[in-house]
């Protein structure tokens, strides 16, 4: 069995796969990678199972020691990356000889970055998923001196697979559908929500993203009801909250919009202080 040893103090790194579906009725968040597109790409480059677990990290890059030979692919938020001192590219299948050190700098442009590995990381499966979540998995962050298991490879394979990935446009339009309480907004409120620019605040986590702008509204409170990742909640004070992968399964704020799968991946990668707009698309 191969092992990755974590050499530095990373703060916001977790193991993630597509998440823990099927336990929502027990109050268990779905979790899973924030940006599924980058996750899929990493696993595809390596010819992995579509749900192979990766390291998701943000802001401060991890320094890792790979004990056995393997292949990796770096996807998502770009930064400078070095394997045994040599700079390596993102979105490319890369051979990692045994006892290699991988070092990643800080993310600057986007938010979540991924390290996919041949065969996936083999941390324990809890309730059908390896995704870290406090209260479900024993570990909820990847930290210094952690050892993350993976299967070592038998023989070398050609490693020319790489792909060009389009960057997220500046001030993107995020596709969404009407949420259950959208119809209760006034015409002016609806118009404001769908035409105004919104800014990602610094209050963000895997649970949710708060937006900076306030949308005054007259919606009455509602009784706690199920919520889904991608939902935009509107509080009585006018705060907009985008629920993300680790969000609770129920909530009491009106659900005015819900992002498409694609838009959830995009908003996860928009840095704080940057703007975007919502664009309503029909479901049928």
């Amino acid at each position: 069995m191969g092992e990755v040893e974590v050499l530095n103090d990373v703060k916001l790194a977790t193991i993630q796969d597509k998440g823990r579906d099927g336990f929502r009725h027990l109050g268990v968040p779905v979790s899973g990678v924030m940006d599924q597109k980058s996750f899929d790409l990493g696993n595809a480059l390596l010819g992995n199972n579509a749900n192979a677990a990766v390291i998701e990290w943000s802001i401060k890059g991890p320094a890792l020691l790979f004990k056995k030979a393997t292949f990796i692919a770096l996807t998502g938020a770009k930064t400078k990356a070095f394997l045994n001192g040599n700079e390596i590219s993102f979105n490319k299948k890369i051979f990692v000889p045994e006892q290699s050190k991988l070092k990643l700098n800080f993310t600057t442009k986007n938010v979540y970055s991924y390290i996919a590995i041949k065969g996936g990381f083999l941390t324990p499966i809890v309730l059908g998923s390896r995704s870290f979540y406090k209260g479900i998995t024993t570990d909820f962050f990847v930290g210094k001196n952690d050892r993350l298991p993976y299967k070592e490879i038998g023989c070398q394979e050609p490693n020319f697979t790489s792909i060009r990935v389009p960057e997220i446009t500046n001030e993107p339009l995020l596709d969404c559908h009407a949420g259950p309480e959208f119809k209760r907004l006034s015409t002016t409120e609806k118009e404001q929500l769908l035409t105004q620019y919104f800014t990602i605040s610094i209050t963000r986590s895997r649970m949710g993203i708060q937006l900076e702008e306030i949308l005054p509204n007259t919606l009455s409170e509602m009784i706690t009801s199920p919520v889904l990742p991608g939902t935009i909640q509107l509080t009585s004070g006018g705060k907009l909250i985008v629920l993300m992968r680790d969000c609770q399964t129920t909530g009491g704020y009106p659900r005015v919009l819900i992002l498409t799968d694609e838009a959830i991946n995009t908003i996860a990668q928009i840095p704080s202080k940057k703007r975007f707009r919502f664009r309503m698309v029909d479901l049928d």
Partner: protein
Amino acid sequence: MFDLNYSRYGAYSILIEWPQEINENILYDIIRFKKRIKQESLKEKLQVINGYNSLLIFYDLDIENFYDKVDLLKNIYYTLTDDIKYNRKVWQIPVCYSEKVVEDLSTYAKQKKLDITEIIALHTASKYTMYFTGFLPGFLYLGGLDEKLFIDRKEIPSLKIKPGTVAIGGKQTGIYPIESPGGWYGIGRTPLRFFDVQLEKPTFIEAGDQIQFYSVDEKEYNAISADVELRKYKPEYKIIDGRS
């Protein structure tokens, strides 16, 4: 029969809503509907999650024709029968109401101007109905708290509430299944686990079941804790026939 509202909630889900109120008639209507949806949709992968007055049906694939799906659901609802014998479980939950196991009890007693024996008598007298699970893995939304025990939530939430803490906040009582921050007052602690990932069914209580608390002393609390730790303890329940 209630007048239900069906709406789309994203590409994969349909939300069904009952009138905006909290009562047991609505809950049992939701549960009957939920059970039938699960039975009728064996070929289709879906999940059904309920709230106080809503049911979310989450399909594995995106919904191609919303109106066809709603017609199917309406058909199921209109053919629901009232006569399904409902065997309600009343779970018996041991709680140690002592300052030795929970921090807030004396603060709560002082604020409510009640002594601890009165708190125990009031809290153990009611049967609480489980509406749904949310907020945290295994956190039960319970109805039926005696209004004499209502208290405003703490202005500053506690950072770490211990697992098993039985608490009161606003008009609700509940049990913290895992360590969590929270704004409710802990009045006791149960040795039982309300969320155990090692078990095939991590939560033993289902929506529609009831729970009743009974008071145990520290010695009994410790004895049950030891059995729970070894997974030797089986939660106990009584059965009430029909819909009483």
